[in-house]
């Protein structure tokens, strides 16, 4: 069966262009938006930072992808790294690429990040750089194999807004 590519929107941020440019840097998951819960507040208080910056659950609920940035929140125009996990760990579900894109500007990053599989469903990404303010789509390409669907390639998208 040929591989198919689907794009899943994993994050939701309410914005118009002025709001986009004037809002605080936010990273949030679609699940929070879909459930009607208020968006998480950037960690500026004494409270411990959330463990993950974004999480996505596959359509059938067989696997989840979650990530966190270092440093956090993601800085504007400074390099950062990502840790990502597929849970539960499954040799048939793998992250194969990470990239980012600015849909309003129609360009991506100026650097090509390196993705490293650490084993146990864990990954590390070096060489991330969001060099401009605005809406970024953080894109994880996930390849999964199942008896029912063969090999599928799914693109999981998180939205990040940098002021």
């Amino acid at each position, binding site marked *: 069966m040929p591989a198919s590519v689907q794009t899943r929107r994993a994050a939701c941020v309410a914005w118009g262009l002025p709001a986009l*440019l*004037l809002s605080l840097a936010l990273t949030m998951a679609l699940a929070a938006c879909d459930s009607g819960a208020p968006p998480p507040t950037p960690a500026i208080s004494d409270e411990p930072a959330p463990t993950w910056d974004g999480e996505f659950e596959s359509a059938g609920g067989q696997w989840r992808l979650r990530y966190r940035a270092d440093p956090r929140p993601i800085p*504007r*125009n400074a*390099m950062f790294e990502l840790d990502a996990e597929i849970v539960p760990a499954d040799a048939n579900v793998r992250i194969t690429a990470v990239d980012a894109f600015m849909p*309003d*500007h*129609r*360009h*991506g990053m*100026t*650097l*090509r*990040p*390196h993705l490293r599989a650490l084993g146990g469903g864990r990954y590390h990404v*070096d*060489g991330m*750089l969001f*060099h*401009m*303010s*605005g809406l970024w789509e953080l894109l994880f390409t996930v390849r999964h194999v199942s008896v029912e669907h063969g090999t599928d390639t799914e693109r999981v998208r998180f939205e990040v807004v940098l*002021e």
Partner: protein
Amino acid sequence: MSAKTRVSAIAKLVVVAITSSAAVSAIALDFTEAEIRLIRQHTPLGQPPPDPSNRWADDPAAARFGQYLFFDTRLSDRNDVSCATCHDPRRGFATGTARGTGTGGHETARHVPTLLNNAYNRWFFWDGRADSAWSQATQPLENPSEQAGDRLQIAHRVSRIAELRAGYEAVFGKLPDLSDTRRFPEHAAPMPHDSARARAWGAMSAADQQVVDRVFTNLTKAIAAFERKLVSRDSAFDRFAAAVGSREPVDGFSESAQRGLRLFIGRGNCRLCHSGPNFSDGEFHDTALPRAGGLRDTGRWGGTRRLLADPFNSAGPYSDGVRPPLRFVYARQDSSGQFKTPTLRDVARTAPYMHTGQFERLRDVLRFYSTREGIPRTHGEQGIIQRLDLSESELDDLEAFLQTLSGRPLPPELSSQPAPPTG
């Protein structure tokens, strides 16, 4: 003086007094909290980031020697051009003409960028074909349109001129023995445009080539250490931005400049590329500027390819450590025709403008972005750079704001050649 003239003089005095008062009245506009956050993204300009590729980057002795070299014409083939010839301290370490003039009257291919705040760059040259200041400095020394020398010629001169030798050895230790001209010819370098010097270089052993390259790059590391001192900060804008929340008056930041600032961070969208405390994202964009002289220039596309092939990049054997972005950069398909966003600090002192130097005045630049006249109907970055249709008074305001980005003058001792090194 007639009565009529006296009245006129009094009237002028009153006008001057009112104008001065307005200039000092400072915070007239009510900036919102969101605007204040954006304003403060541009200040303060801290210390330059560390340069892991140059272990002498912050060495005072290296900087002093580098300053001596920077102003020394003997690093050029005909003893007529120094770094300071094009990077003129009287013109904000840039050139007052569209192109620089190198040895023998040759013109440089692009406009000479300022060296002010050079140490904050991620990439160097308009096309980013170097990833460190010392690597950048190797290229004009051998460029036939600039200093037109070669690394063997320069190494020999340093070894034979007493003060240059003394300066080198005080920082880097004993110079290697280059006296055997069969091993170390008078002229040699891997230059594609000069077959004689390229042949001489090819005839050298790899070990001797490395000896020369080490001397050559040590010299440019000293020059880079000097350039790190060329920092422009503490402008009227910085003082205004520090006070904007407190509503304290700030001298030198007129109401017009405030309106210009509001445009800069708002409708003008200038901050998208001219971001952060150095007013540059340090990356590359295609502004659809009409080609100067009709010449094709691939900009960042060609620059990246040259960078990755350059043995003097920060991953090469002459670097003291990799600068992280180099590990991840690649020649993006959409990067052809892109050029680096220049800093706007001290921009009023560094005319003319753009990578071609084709705009003589700030007003010309602003008008280009306002009207977008002469650009193709579609271009790669139309999502970012859109026609603004600014009024004349809005152009006045933006220009007034840009004038406030001039920092305190550099210490005069950085603007001329210091006393010769004595060892």
